[in-house]
């Protein structure tokens, strides 16, 4: 089972594949350091540019960006109290007070070492857990695959929190977009309205760029952020090897935060920000000096950063094995895999072991590279990124979006379609409709339809074929649990808490 993992290692060390991870990590830190830009957006913009690349080069870039951006978010969080990414909110609690005390450099070093630790732990979890899970999922037939798709959609809608009606609307929209084009079995047109460009369906990249890249650009231009200018001389940075001994007491926090981050990453719907908050709260609760937290406690930065990086690779465990992404970035990465003809799910491990296991190694090396690239020298340079003019950045991203989408098929029709999705994405974003269910709906919609129709054919049209084996019934039960669970929790556990608080 794990021999494929070792077999994939030499490919990862080829110059192009390794360079891709290095470039990815640097780009990720840059993107993460820019408030308003996120790993999700960066990968969405990047995906169309990877068409002509080897799959491992493309995936290496994505793995690097994901790892780098999670740390990059800490730079403005520490220096300006503005989280570069949503996952870096908890980093501001102690990072910014440290910067005010003249310890900004040390805060960033704690952040980079903790991020690397979390990333390495997460990559190991992916390597250890994904292969055996993929063996189990290989046994799935059409009805089980259909229920896995339904379970995935239900998980991301109901576990994401927020309004389930909005989550369901997002998912229905995504599934509807997936059926545009030729019918997979009969070949008749569905909702193409005579447009030849629509016959092959809507390319996922067009949707990804529209939903995830256009709204942040509008935000960048809507509220230009004025940064007061960060000077590297004020960071108080010393070489990272001198700072490492000061971090030797953080082992427990790193281990606990890694465990929390990995677990949150595996759960569909939860994300890096939740992991960082949970890890921060747990570390503070168990600290001998909780009163110093919030006033510049370096362990607080360690707790938040280790957890938000520990959910990166682990979010890909359900994504790669079942086709269910744990986070929005993982959903976008699934899109990246599809672009290279790699269908996430059980078959991926059987048909493309070198690529999928190579991708896992790239996550591990990306996390290790964080220490070198995000270490003391780079930290000063990356801090200066905050002084880049945001309107100029916005205009450059607009150009990159157009190039990326146009390059898919070499036609402007796709660009107009992307703008349409962008407008829809902006409205959804403002009205708090979750975006991941749209992407997952598009990925799983066609997949679910094909397997549903196949299962019905096997069962000669009898819908009971979907409930005739134990695995299907377990998946149905899990789906019901995911749908009913949050409301039961709200009704009983949260109510009990309120009653206890009132009584106390």
């Amino acid at each position, binding site marked *: 089972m794990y021999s494929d993992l070792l077999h994939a290692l030499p490919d990862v060390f080829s110059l192009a594949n390794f360079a891709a991870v290095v470039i990815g990590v640097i780009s990720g830190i840059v993107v993460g350091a820019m408030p308003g830009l996120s790993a999700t957006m960066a990968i969405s913009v990047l995906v169309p540019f990877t068409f002509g690349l080897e799959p491992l080069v493309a995936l290496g870039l994505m793995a690097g960006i994901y790892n780098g951006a999670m740390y990059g978010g800490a730079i403005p969080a520490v220096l300006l109290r503005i989280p570069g990414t949503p996952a870096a909110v908890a980093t501001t609690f102690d990072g910014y007070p440290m910067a005010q005390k003249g310890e900004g450099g040390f805060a960033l070093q704690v952040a980079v070492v903790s991020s690397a630790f979390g990333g390495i732990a997460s990559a190991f979890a992916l390597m250890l857990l994904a292969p055996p899970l993929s063996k189990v999922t290989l046994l799935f037939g059409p009805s089980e695959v259909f229920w896995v798709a339904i379970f995935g959609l239900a998980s991301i809608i109901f576990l994401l929190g927020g309004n389930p009606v909005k989550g*369901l609307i997002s998912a229905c929209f995504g599934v509807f977009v997936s059926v545009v084009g030729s019918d997979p079995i009969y070949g008749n047109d569905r909702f193409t309205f005579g447009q030849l460009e629509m016959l092959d369906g809507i390319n996922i990249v067009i949707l990804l760029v529209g939903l995830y890249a256009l709204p942040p650009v509008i935000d960048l231009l*809507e509220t230009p952020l004025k940064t007061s200018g960060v000077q590297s001389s004020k960071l108080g940075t010393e070489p990272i090897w001198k700072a490492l001994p000061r971090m030797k007491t953080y082992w427990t926090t790193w281990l606990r935060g890694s465990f929390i981050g990995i677990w949150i990453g595996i759960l569909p719907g939860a994300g890096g920000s939740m992991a960082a908050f949970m890890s921060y709260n747990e570390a503070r609760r168990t600290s001998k000096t909780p009163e110093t937290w919030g006033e510049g406690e370096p362990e607080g930065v360690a707790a938040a950063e280790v957890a938000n990086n520990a959910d990166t690779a682990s979010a890909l465990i359900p994504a790669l094995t079942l086709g269910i992404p744990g986070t929005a970035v993982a959903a976008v990465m699934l899109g990246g895999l599809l672009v290279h003809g790699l269908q996430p799910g059980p078959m991926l491990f059987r048909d493309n072991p070198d690529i999928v296991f190579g991708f896992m190694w790239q996550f591990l090396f990306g996390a290790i590279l964080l220490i070198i690239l995000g270490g003391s020298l780079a930290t000063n340079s990356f801090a200066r990124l905050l002084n880049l003019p945001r309107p100029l950045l916005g205009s450059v991203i607009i150009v990159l979006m157009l190039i990326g989408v146009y390059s898919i098929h070499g036609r402007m029709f796709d660009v107009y379609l992307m703008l349409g999705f962008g407008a829809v994405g902006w409205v959804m974003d403002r009205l708090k409709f979750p975006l991941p269910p749209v992407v997952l709906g598009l990925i799983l919609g066609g997949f679910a339809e094909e397997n549903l129709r196949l299962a019905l054919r096997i069962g000669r049209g009898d819908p009971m074929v979907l409930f005739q084996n134990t695995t299907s019934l377990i998946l149905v039960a899990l789906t019901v649990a995911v749908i009913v669970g949050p409301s039961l929790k709200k009704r009983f556990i949260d109510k009990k808490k309120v009653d206890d608080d009132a009584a106390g």
Partner: protein
Amino acid sequence: MPASKTPRLARPETLTALGIILVAAGFLIPTFEQRAISALLPATMLIGLIVLSVLLLVSDQRKAAAGEDAQPMTKSPKRVIGAFGLIVAYALATDFIGFYVSTAVTIPLVAWIFGYRNPLGLLIATLIVTGTIWAIFDFGMSQDFPAGRLWER
């Protein structure tokens, strides 16, 4: 009961729900001409969208009746409309006038309008971005960008 400032039918969620209902109903019409098995999933999703939007509409109207004010979608609508308008104009200009001319104009124009007004910085950024795109895509990868429909005639 406190009165809501936004007219009840002009609340963003209400307008969105009504929009989804109208569009989904419009898309539902072609499903009647499709084979039953082909129309199964799309029709289910469209009906689902209509039902869910009705729920959203009812919930938003209940909030309005309770006097809860709707959050505005943006604090600076002019900037949002301007940004989106410029992006659409850039796409149209690329299509009709050509990629390089449109890009060379759009980068400084968007940055200038939205607050970055350093002529030298704009010139350098435009030259670097346009030049890099040409070197990587046109020269290195032989990728053709739109030359402009106006000139094709």
